[in-house]
């Protein structure tokens, strides 16, 4: 029961209406904003961007509050409408609306008594629906915020970069096993690879230049290694020529040539790989050397051979007195160098380097064959009655690798019922035709490289390569039998 004046009744009604308008506007705006922000947050999370909830997000409620305040100012019925409503609801006979325009005078008491008689009937606030409407965005936010943190999804190119780094690391491991490169070089490259992998794991963006730079570094290392091996091979060839020469003037050059060869092998880092018994023929007397100064053994070799003085310096040694022993030593050192060269070539070299190495090996082998004397059977090559395996065993070199650009690769569905061939294997991906490494075929059977190169340039499908490889393998096994 209301016992208050019309003004207080109107104020009460006004408060209720403002509260209702505020609640409705706030809930509507919060509903819209909540759903929108929830959907946005969900989308962001689906795309892998992790957003941790922060108390600052509550500042987002300022917008609905501001919206609701504005709505209260705009949408709340004006005082005249409120008076109309109250007049009708309380059945005041129009006295309340009249009181806003004229002085009621003696009718005021009647208005007050009418107000007192009538039951207060407030407008329906309907706060349940606004607050129920808030349940939807709150539910969405709870779901979104309690979702497990989305694992960082890598970008498509990141997986390619990781794959590339992994392959490079495997390549380095293989190089480490075959000792085609010096250990320090391999370690340096491995550290670079690990550094890039760590950056990738942290989610940092890797530039393709950094990944591709590894290949360049590896090629550079191979090239440097090749240069050293070539120098060693040249030294071996020079020594062989010195040994083969009948010119007495050259006999004095045997010791410097052997010294040079040892130094070059030491530089190339393959001296430690040569069996120690190879050096058994070296004389312990330095005076055996023509210039009586003896050979300066590299420190590591001297240490291995036990030719160290008390101060830890290597003791000079002399040449073998036996010429045949010297020739065997030279040949062994040369073959070690040749083996290292072939091992390096097997791990892949640039085409130009490969050609240079091939030519050098040819020359060295020619030098060795000449050393065997005129009784040596001339090697028959392609076009000279010899047999060349062709590109069957040649190693394929893939250039311009396109790890990062697979757009040109199209996945095709196999015909129904046809299974993919198990013989197929991915050797590499390239934009152009693979270059064929003729190294394997330039062995004893090839005399010159011209014809062989010509045949190697022919394109062979993998199937044909396999046929050629099988043919020669079978013939080899039959020959062995």
């Amino acid at each position, binding site marked *: 029961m209301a016992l208050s004046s019309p003004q207080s009744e109107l104020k009460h009604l006004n408060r209720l209406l403002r509260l209702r308008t505020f609640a409705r506007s706030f809930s509507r705006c919060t509903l819209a904003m909540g759903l929108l922000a929830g959907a946005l947050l969900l989308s962001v999370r689906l795309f892998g961007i992790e957003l941790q909830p922060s108390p600052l997000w509550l500042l987002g409620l300022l917008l609905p509050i501001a919206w609701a305040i504005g709505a209260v100012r*705009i949408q709340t019925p004006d005082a005249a409408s409120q008076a*109309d*409503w109250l*007049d009708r609801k309380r059945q005041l006979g*129009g006295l309340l609306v*009249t009181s806003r325009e004229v*002085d009621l005078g003696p*009718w005021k008491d009647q208005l007050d008594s009418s107000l007192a008689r009538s039951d207060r009937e407030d407008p329906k606030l309907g706060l349940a629906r606004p607050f129920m409407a808030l349940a939807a965005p709150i539910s969405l936010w709870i779901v979104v915020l309690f979702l497990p943190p989305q694992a960082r999804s890598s970008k498509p190119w990141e997986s390619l970069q990781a794959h590339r780094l992994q392959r490079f690391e495997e390549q380095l491991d293989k190089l480490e096993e075959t000792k085609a490169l010096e250990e320090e070089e391999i370690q340096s490259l491995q550290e670079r690879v690990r550094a890039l992998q760590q950056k990738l794991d942290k989610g940092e963006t890797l530039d393709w230049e950094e990944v591709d730079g590894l290949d360049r570094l590896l090629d550079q290392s191979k090239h440097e290694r090749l240069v050293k091996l070539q120098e060693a091979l040249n030294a071996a060839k020079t020594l062989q020529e010195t040994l083969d020469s009948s010119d007495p003037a050259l006999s004095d050059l045997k010791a410097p040539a052997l010294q040079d060869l040892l130094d070059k092998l030491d530089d190339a880092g393959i001296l430690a790989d040569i069996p120690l018994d190879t050096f058994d023929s070296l004389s312990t007397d330095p005076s055996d050397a023509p210039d009586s100064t003896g050979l300066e053994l590299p420190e590591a070799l001297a240490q291995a051979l036990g030719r160290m003085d008390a101060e830890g310096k290597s003791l000079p040694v002399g040449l073998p007195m036996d010429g045949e022993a010297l020739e065997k030593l030279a040949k062994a050192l040369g073959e070690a160098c040749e083996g290292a060269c072939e091992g390096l070539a097997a791990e892949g070299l640039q085409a130009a380097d490969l050609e240079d190495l091939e030519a050098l090996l040819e020359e060295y082998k020619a030098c060795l064959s000449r050393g065997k004397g005129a009784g040596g059977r001339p090697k028959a090559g392609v076009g000279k009655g010899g047999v060349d395996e062709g590109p069957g065993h040649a190693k394929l070199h893939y250039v311009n690798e396109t790890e990062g650009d697979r757009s040109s690769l199209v996945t095709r569905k196999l015909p129904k019922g046809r299974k993919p061939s198990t013989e197929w294997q991915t050797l590499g991906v390239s934009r152009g035709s693979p270059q064929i490494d003729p190294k394997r075929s330039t062995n004893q059977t090839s005399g010159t490289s011209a014809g062989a190169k010509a045949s190697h340039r022919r394109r062979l499908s993998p199937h044909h390569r396999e046929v050629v490889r099988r043919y020669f393998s079978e013939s080899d096994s039959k020959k062995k039998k």
Partner: protein
Amino acid sequence: MPDNTPSSTLLDPREVERGQALLLGLKEGLSQALIGQDRLIELCLIALAARGHLLLEGLPGLGKTELVKAMGALLDMDFSRVQFTPDLLPGDITGGPVLQETEGQRSFVFQKGPIFAHLVLADEINRASPKTQSALLEAMQEHRVTVLGESHDLPDPFFVLATQNPIELEGTYPLPEAQLDRFLFKVDVPGVGSDVLEAILLNRRRGQTPRMDPIMDAQQLQELFDLVDQIYLPEAVARYTARLVSATHPGSPEAPTELEGCLRYGASPRAAIALGEAGRASALLAGRPNVDFSDIEQLARPVLSHRLILDHRARIEGRTPAELVDILVRELSPVSENLSGGRS
């Protein structure tokens, strides 16, 4: 003219009581003449207090004529009855020049017709020809009659209380819209229930109404009119009234969608004025110094229904103007129940 400015003051409660007492006295007298038709009587009194003309429509025998006759008896004013028939001429109502010889001089003297009375009962008005019906136009609006270029003022106050029969339409002439608009109310006289019939049987002998003595003279009636004029019409109620009348016009933004295509022509400003005046009279009858929304709502139907011209859709759907007015009142509630909306 009433002054509705904020400085105005309301009628004194005693004056309101006096005006209400006058009306209630009339109501009591009419209730004796017409049993069980309180609402009809109230509307008659409101029309009288608002100085409006009244059109009663109902079946024969419901007491329309008796009501008007009783009103004439109670008011102690000149009362005339005109039975409208197809052969009735305008001159039969208004009167006309009559050649009169006085002292050897012949001259035309205007002989007043039955319309020269305070209270004119136009019984079965729709049976007269349009020519005759139109004779009432000037009288009802201007309160004067012009014959042969000479105008004659009608007595003040002047009321026309007309009746018409909704059946037996053969040989009748429906009132034109212009004339309908001049009637403040068109009231459908409803039938009565068995309890009312029982009361009529017990209180009537041979159908004769009890003798009625005048209870209000012309001075009192004028006093009543003055009181009605001083009833305050609040702006909110006037705004609601204007909205209500405006909404009857097709294409009006106020018109509810439910009435779309139902109305061809809406009510005139005269209807809004009539509604306001009737509201004032209604407030006085209720003993209030001001018009309330409820007055307008209750009077909207008798004031507006005969002023609306329906469109084909409403006719096909069988809707009546009264139904459409009820829809208007319902949809255009002065303030919605939920008090929605903002500043307008």
